[in-house]
């Protein structure tokens, strides 16, 4: 059998309204409590972080004055480091011609000698004489070998001629490695 609601319509509305008011009150109290908790948390966070910041600032001031007291050492160290570092880089980047000549002397054929060597802006032009065409071939082969390419690259024979005695004159050019 269906329930029969005997409460009058008005009474029911009042009851619903009271329920709504109660719920709203609970929500308001909840909102106020949550707000209060958040205020406290934010305040604690803010105070903690601010005090830490103040601590760091005073530490930085203290350390700054210590560093200023050690300025002479810092200046010296910076200058030394700067000079030695650059000197090391420059020394590493330069061409050591004595070493280059020693390496060259070790690989070129015995029937070959140089009459003129010019190195300008990294480009080398070598003029010389050779006892025979085989010696010239040996020279070119030496310069284009693995050991030769450590000294000179992009080798080209610019001129090659022989005279009535069979002596060959040559001009070879290339790029000095590392210059």
């Amino acid at each position: 059998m269906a329930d029969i609601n005997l409460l009058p319509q008005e009474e029911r509305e009042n009851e619903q309204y009271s329920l709504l008011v109660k719920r709203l009150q609970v929500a308001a109290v909840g909102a106020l409590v949550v707000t209060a908790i958040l205020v406290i948390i934010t305040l604690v966070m803010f105070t903690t972080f601010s005090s830490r910041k103040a601590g760091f600032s005073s530490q930085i001031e203290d350390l700054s004055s210590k560093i200023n007291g050690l300025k002479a050492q810092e200046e010296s160290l910076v200058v030394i480091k700067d000079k030695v570092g650059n000197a090391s880089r420059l020394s590493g980047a330069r061409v050591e011609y004595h070493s280059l000549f020693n390496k060259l002397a070790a690989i070129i054929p015995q029937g070959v000698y140089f009459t003129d060597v010019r190195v300008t802006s990294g480009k080398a032009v070598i003029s010389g004489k050779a006892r025979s065409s085989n010696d010239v071939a040996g020279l070119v082969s030496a310069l284009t070998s693995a050991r030769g390419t450590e000294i000179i690259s992009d080798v080209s024979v610019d001129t090659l001629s022989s005279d009535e005695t069979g002596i060959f004159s040559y001009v070879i050019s290339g790029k000095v490695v590392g210059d």
Partner: protein
Amino acid sequence: MNLPTLSIARLPPKIEFGRTQLLLAPAGAILVAVIVLVLVIWPKFTQALSIRAENQQLAVKVGVMETKVQVLASLDRNELVEQLGDAERLLPSDKAVFSYIRQIEAVASAAGVILSKVDVVPGVLSGESAGASPPPTAQGAAPGGASQDALEGAKVQVKISLTSDYKSLVTFLEQIMTLLRVSAVRDLTIASVSATGEVAPLRTSMALDAYFRPLPKELGSIEAPVEVLTPEEEKILASVRAAAISSPVVTSSAVVAVPTGRTDLFAPF
């Protein structure tokens, strides 16, 4: 039964105003809570978070500065002065042309070559106008350091001509490289004057780039970390000191004192 037929005016709902009053208080409280949340809590919370982020940066800064203080305090001032002198021998702060020419002459004499010509255009002798170094960065030489192009500007070029045999020339080239001051050989020309197939003296001309590095004008920021010398750099300085002690004439950067005073400014020697 006779019921009155007169219509009675219906009373308006008497609790309407009271009802609204009951709603106002919780609604107002919620509104206040929202306003406090939006206008007070959220800005302060974000501010607190930004302070926290700042603190993290400050903590790193403090750590770096503490390390810097420890590093600087551990350095021996006298040792630094000596190392500074050695570094100055490697790369002088100014052009130091005359001491370099003197070094070339000493090397030529030691190697057994005849120095026939020395040609140099020193220009303004102060190093600052020739190629001021950028302020050093603590990150080195990238920190440290200057680029090759920047360094190429800080040099003085000395052109020399010399006559020698092959062995002396190679010795000269080797000793020039072992000079304390960093220098490099450029534009080398070697010509043999032999016409008859006999071994003849070599005539050589070359340009020597002698590098220098002006002192930095300003230090990095106070919180910038300092870099200590690497073992390789300490080794270089130690070798410079050893060479300076073993051959003071060749490596001396000082200009030799000469007698001064003349009565006739135009009289020959």
